[in-house]
């Protein structure tokens, strides 16, 4: 794979002398950023480095435009969390935020310029039914009810089908675990819940601990088979690792021990490896060696797949194997959670439904 095509990662990791970047390279950087949902993130990073005002106007206005989107999203996240809190507090459940919403609410660097469309929360399985009931009472419904999908989610997935608010159209993903119940890596929601961090000024609102946020991000990226925002998720990991490792003297020890405790050595191996490769994430040499214990059997083979799937989802970053790599990892993710005799009919059905949707769109 040709990482040099990924101009965006050079800009994000300050490997480029920005004043020597040509117009056509800026064109590529902005396009790759937009395709990866990282335009606003790029704005924040360049602003922190004090270079936004020195960029050509035609480039900087796209970055400045994106920061309005980011700011608007930030405002709506805090509002939405208040609404979710009203629904869960009434039944004595905490609001445990995951992913993007968690980064924004705790003021993490990873939250700066982070764009996303759904809010993710974690609810212990034993409380799931009453949580769903209360959320429904407060206006969140499953808009796209489909019997097969419903059964699929409830059997094989670690989240219920997405809920949409009837008035605000906001989307809520309710997770009861951070890995599918039948996954080769079993997550222990109870252990995560024991280690939550509260949010100052927001009663009843929590996120996973800093180390658990990183582990969740790694597991989601390297087990779930979704790479539409793969590069963005890698940028999250880089941001989280940089920030938390600076704040905590024993961060690396905590991260490594916790990855062993939760059985996440493989995903964290991938996370560290590819964050370093694409974004120059600073990893102390001693800890690199410890993390090597999570190495897969065929690391070069996995490089072939992940090296392509993690590139920005833009044609300028593709080679002739990129589609195949993403597809293969998608199959792998399903294989890791479903037996083969169920996997094949499921994939056939998904392909058929996708084609039906495409034909319906064409007919309209």
């Amino acid at each position, binding site marked *: 794979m040709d990482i040099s095509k990924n101009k965006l990662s050079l800009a994000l990791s300050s490997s480029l002398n920005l004043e020597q970047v040509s117009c056509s390279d*800026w*064109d590529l950087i902005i396009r790759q950023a937009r*395709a990866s949902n990282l335009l606003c993130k790029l704005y924040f990073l360049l602003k922190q480095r004090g270079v936004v005002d020195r960029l050509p106007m*035609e480039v900087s*206005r796209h970055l*400045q*435009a994106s920061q309005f989107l980011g700011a608007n999203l930030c405002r709506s996240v805090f509002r939405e969390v208040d609404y979710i809190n009203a629904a869960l507090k009434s039944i004595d459940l905490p609001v445990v935020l995951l992913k993007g919403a968690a980064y924004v609410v705790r003021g993490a660097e990873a939250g700066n310029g982070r764009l996303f469309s759904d809010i993710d929360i974690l609810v212990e399985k034993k409380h799931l039914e009453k949580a769903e009931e209360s959320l429904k009472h407060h206006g969140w419904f499953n808009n796209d009810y489909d019997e097969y999908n419903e059964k699929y989610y409830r059997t094989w997935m670690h989240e219920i089908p997405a809920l949409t608010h009837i008035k605000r159209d906001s989307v809520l993903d309710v997770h009861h675990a951070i890995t599918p119940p039948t996954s080769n890596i079993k997550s222990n929601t109870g252990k995560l819940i024991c280690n939550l961090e509260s949010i100052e000024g927001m009663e009843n609102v929590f996120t996973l601990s800093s180390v658990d946020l990183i582990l969740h991000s790694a597991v989601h990226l390297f087990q779930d088979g979704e790479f539409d925002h793969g590069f963005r998720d890698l940028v999250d990991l880089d941001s989280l690792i940089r920030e938390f490792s600076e704040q905590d003297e024993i961060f690396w020890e905590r991260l490594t021990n916790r990855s062993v405790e939760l059985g996440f050595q493989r995903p964290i191996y991938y996370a560290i490896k590819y964050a370093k490769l694409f974004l120059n994430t600073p990893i102390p040499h001693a800890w690199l060696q410890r993390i090597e214990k999570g190495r897969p059997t065929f690391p070069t083979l996995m490089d072939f797949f992940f090296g392509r799937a993690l590139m920005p989802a*833009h044609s300028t970053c593709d080679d002739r194997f990129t589609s195949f790599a993403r597809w293969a990892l998608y199959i792998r993710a399903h294989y890791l959670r479903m037996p083969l005799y169920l996997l094949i009919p499921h994939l056939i059905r998904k392909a058929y439904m996708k084609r039906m949707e495409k034909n319906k*769109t064409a007919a309209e």
Partner: protein
Amino acid sequence: MNIGSLSEKEFISAIQQEGVAFRVAGFVVKLQTPFADVGKCIYLLYFDFPLADLNSFIDFHMEIVPPKGVRRWYCPQVEFYFDGFRPFKPLPRDQAYAMFEWSFNWCVANHMHNYFIVHAAVVDKDDKCIIMPAPPGSGKSTLCASLVMSGWRLLSDELALLDLQSEHVYPIPRPINLKNNSIDIIRNRFSNAVFGPIIKDTAKGTVSHLKPPEGSVLSASRVSKPTWIIFPKYLAGSETSLLKRSKAQTFMEVAKNAFNYTVLGRDGFQTLVKLIDACDCYDFCYSNIDDALEEFDKLRESK
């Protein structure tokens, strides 16, 4: 060098292959399409627009292309891609050129949030402009086209772009989208009007695009001061009337017609307050174009 400096054949060949980059006021667009008829329309209606280097920084990478699969040939359709992303459902093949124009509006309205963007026509004389927000069917485009063919400068027929201090409107003159009866009204009134093809059965009815005056295109870098906000309404048989309207109600109506009022949050509110402060606000009712033009000239002379 403008598009007209190439021959039509050269231009169509280029747009069908690697695509062509050209300037539309402050934006650089790159369009690639295999459809010769779309290339022909662009050549005709964007004749005066400057070409740009394909290696320059491009604001909007656009493709107007046939779909993959059977709809390429059977009841053929056309799709728009914005740098590999398809935001809309396909349209019938014969609406390909109109799709380019509507897609261009989408590109600006969805991305350029460094401006306050209002769905409105904007015309000016001597750098003081009139912003005309109006829902479809109000006669805004007919009035805009009439003004522009009668000496007013076209800033835009669809998108008012304001800086966030509301001090300037930035021109983005492009072909004016006319619908149904207004096509014949303008064609019959202005013998020098140049039109693109008539496109039938669109969601807006029958549409056609009027080439913008060369003067408007050449002065696209000259900003204008927002001075009036006028809500036009064509009402057959009515007297021409220009009536002052409540500024607060104008505020609410402009906010409704703004693409990014909500996105801009508090900044959007403050920008719109400044705009309303700066402008005289009117309702304008008309049934006769000559009377309408006279009224607008009187208005311009009053300031």
